[in-house]
């Protein structure tokens, strides 16, 4: 009885491992772009993987200001966008006020959207892979 | 009771004896005892090589003994001492040894009027009691917790009724102890019997008992209460109704029980030394309402004044309305009367004494090696080497103070007002 139960446990764990890990993709030739912001300096983790074109295509984002937003008096200005300026121009790395600190701004922006849409990476290692190549795809596959 | 009317309440002050001279006369002078009326002072003295006697007001008894100890005045002013001659022991009263002597004599107790002198004796390795020299007919192989009735006509002890081999724990646990009154043991035996109390008329006896190693109860005339407790303390009789009252432990807390029924609706972390007021209308006990906090409870109501170390020496006023006791914190003793603590602490305090009209409380006190009388919180101006308990005159107007000052034993009668101020 006991042995059976342990066997079952091992089997289920293995199955779970296979299911969750099966999203590991084959190596891809596509170019990779990342959210490497000079303002961070040397970060503890590699910059987040972000293939701009592919992402937007997949996510069907057409308006730039979905991400490159402009805020005035705490309100998002609908028809303005800020792709001409760097994120760190508004989002200070260390000091948050009045805007979010840079890292938090990235995290919140990306993750909130991924959460809402229920697609895209939301855990640390998905955006900040140790081995850029393999995980970049993983990040993309998620779309 | 002792007739105090006949005492000298007029002589204001007299030096009864200068004890400084005693040391010249005798090579050895033990501590002094003062007679209740204050007219005499006595001490055990060595009169020669291995020869002892008792010196009263500077004069030694005619009789000498090989040994003397436990010199005490009875309430009637007669002076008793445990004495030994030729390896035999007895009690000498006012210098006259009892006719009968024993293997050993230990505790000596007096009836309230002092007429009967009772002693705990051993004869040929057997134990019992003697009243005025007359021993029990039956003696027992072991006896403890010697008790007497207030009239001194009855004596009792916890006795072993069957022999037990050394280390026979099973025999012991079968119950081989009981109480014996006037030499006659109760029929029923117990694992242990301890402190006993006689009814006021001396006809009944109550005792603490252990039925097994852990079942305790109170036994009255050999009949245990139906209730079993995890522990009990010494019982007393209600002086009017004859009911028996004892502290009992129920669960983790103590309360008072009367004839096997819980008497107080409150329980305490500790409860003991209960006393009845003279009219039996009230009962007081020393209690610990909280762990390590001591006070007095009257009819189950605890006082607010709390002492950390202990409370002792409770005494009701003659009218039963007031109560005095002694409390202790660290090294300091204080008097507490009717839940009010007197100002001033002392290194030692004896039992408080109420005046007959219940108005005044006086007490023997010691501070920094000097003793005095304190009345209603106010110390008497005189500091002495030693004082004895104060005695109020029957009308309460005067106080008899017995003291030793500069080696002189002095008897004073002071108006109560002089002490109260």
């Amino acid at each position, binding site marked *: 009885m006991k042995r059976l139960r342990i066997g079952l446990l091992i089997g289920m764990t293995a199955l779970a491992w296979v299911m969750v890990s099966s999203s590991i993709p084959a190596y891809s030739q596509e170019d990779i772009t990342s959210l490497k912001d000079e303002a961070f300096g040397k970060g503890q983790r590699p910059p987040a993987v972000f293939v701009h074109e592919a992402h937007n295509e997949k996510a069907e984002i057409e308006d730039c200001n979905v991400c490159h937003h402009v805020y005035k008096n705490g309100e998002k200005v609908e028809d303005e966008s800020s792709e001409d300026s760097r994120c760190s121009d508004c989002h200070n790395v260390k000091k948050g006020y009045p805007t979010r600190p840079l890292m938090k701004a990235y995290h919140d922006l990306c993750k909130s959207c991924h959460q809402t849409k229920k697609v895209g990476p939301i*855990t640390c290692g*998905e955006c900040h892979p140790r081995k850029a190549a393999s995980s970049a795809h993983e990040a993309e596959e998620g779309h | 009771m002792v007739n105090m009317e006949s005492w000298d309440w007029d002589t204001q002050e007299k030096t009864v004896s200068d004890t400084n001279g005693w040391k010249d006369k005798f090579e050895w002078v033990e501590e002094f005892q003062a007679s209740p009326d204050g007219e005499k002072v006595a001490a055990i003295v060595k009169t020669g090589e291995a020869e002892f006697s008792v010196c009263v007001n500077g004069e030694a008894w005619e009789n000498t003994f090989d040994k003397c100890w436990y010199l005490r005045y009875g309430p009637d002013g007669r002076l008793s001492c445990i004495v030994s001659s030729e390896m035999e022991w007895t009690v000498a009263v006012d210098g006259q040894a009892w006719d009968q002597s024993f293997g050993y004599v230990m505790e000596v107790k007096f009836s309230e009027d002092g007429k009967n002198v009772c002693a705990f004796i051993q004869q040929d390795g057997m134990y019992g009691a003697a009243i005025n020299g007359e021993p029990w007919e039956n003696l027992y192989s072991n006896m403890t917790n010697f008790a007497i009735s207030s009239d001194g006509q009855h004596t009792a002890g916890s006795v072993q009724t069957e022999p037990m081999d050394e280390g026979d724990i099973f025999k012991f646990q079968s119950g081989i102890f009981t109480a014996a009154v006037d030499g006659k043991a109760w029929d029923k035996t117990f694992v242990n019997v301890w402190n006993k109390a006689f009814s006021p008329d001396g006809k009944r006896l109550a005792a603490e008992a252990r039925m097994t190693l852990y079942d305790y109860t109170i036994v009255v005339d050999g009949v245990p209460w139906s209730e079993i407790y995890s522990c009990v303390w010494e019982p007393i009789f209600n002086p009017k109704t004859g009911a028996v009252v004892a502290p009992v432990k129920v669960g983790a807390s103590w309360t008072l029980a009367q004839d096997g029924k819980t008497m107080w609706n409150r329980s305490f972390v500790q409860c003991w030394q209960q006393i009845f007021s003279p009219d039996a209308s009230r009962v007081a006990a020393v209690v610990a309402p909280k*762990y390590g906090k001591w006070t007095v409870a009257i009819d189950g109501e605890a006082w607010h004044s709390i002492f950390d170390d202990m409370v002792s020496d409770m005494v009701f006023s003659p009218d039963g309305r007031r109560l005095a006791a002694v409390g202790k914190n660290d090294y300091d003793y204080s008097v507490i009367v009717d839940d009010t603590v007197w100002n001033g602490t002392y290194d030692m305090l004896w039992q408080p004494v109420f005046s007959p009209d219940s108005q005044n409380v006086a007490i023997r006190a010691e501070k920094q090696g000097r003793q005095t009388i304190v009345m209603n919180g106010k110390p008497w101006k005189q500091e002495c080497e030693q004082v004895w308990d104060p005695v109020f005159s029957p009308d309460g107007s005067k106080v008899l103070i017995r003291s030793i000052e500069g080696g002189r034993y002095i008897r004073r009668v002071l108006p109560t007002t002089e002490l109260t101020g």
Partner: protein
Amino acid sequence: MHGLYNFVRGPLAWVAFILFVGGTLYRLIAMLVIARKKDNVVFDYFSLFYGLRSIFHWIIPFANRNSRQRPIFTIVTFAFHICLLAAPILLLAHVLLWDESFGISWWTLPEGVADIMTLIVIGGCIYFLWRRLTQPEVKFVTFASDFVILAIVAAPFITGFLAYHQWLGYKFWLILHILAGEVMLVAIPFTRLAHMIYSPFTRAYMGSEFGSVRHARDW
């Protein structure tokens, strides 16, 4: 994946923290209530000064005789406990989660340091396991539950380590890591891991008895 991750990261984490905090409070309050009721002396002899004096001598390595007698154990257990507490609390990834959820954050350890601390905790667990398996005086008082507790403690660190290094099956280890952490949190008040809650009190009580009553040292 979103659903599973959000479940362990959200509601389950809430459950775990509520059980941890609630359980801890419950155990503490229950202890105090039962002490009040049945062991009141504990309060009567409690001394803040001597309690802290005792704790002080036992949270400093080699400040008490037993720890000097067993230098290896002392080093391991101190390193283990420090890392066990510090690594999760000061981990960057954890602090980011706090920040994300509640907007609160604090100083964090460099990730490389946290990584080493994790290994120290895992090493400590292996050392404790080795003691339980080989040292007669420990083996004799070891029950199956002791291994389970050891596993409960080791699991979040092993899975966390694997997840952090993203070798194989990152998300699997990550989710398992979160689950393991939650299991451990819940286990703290309800297993012998409760020594985390109780030990300051037992130590302080013994310190009080030794200090203020016995006038002696308890280290």
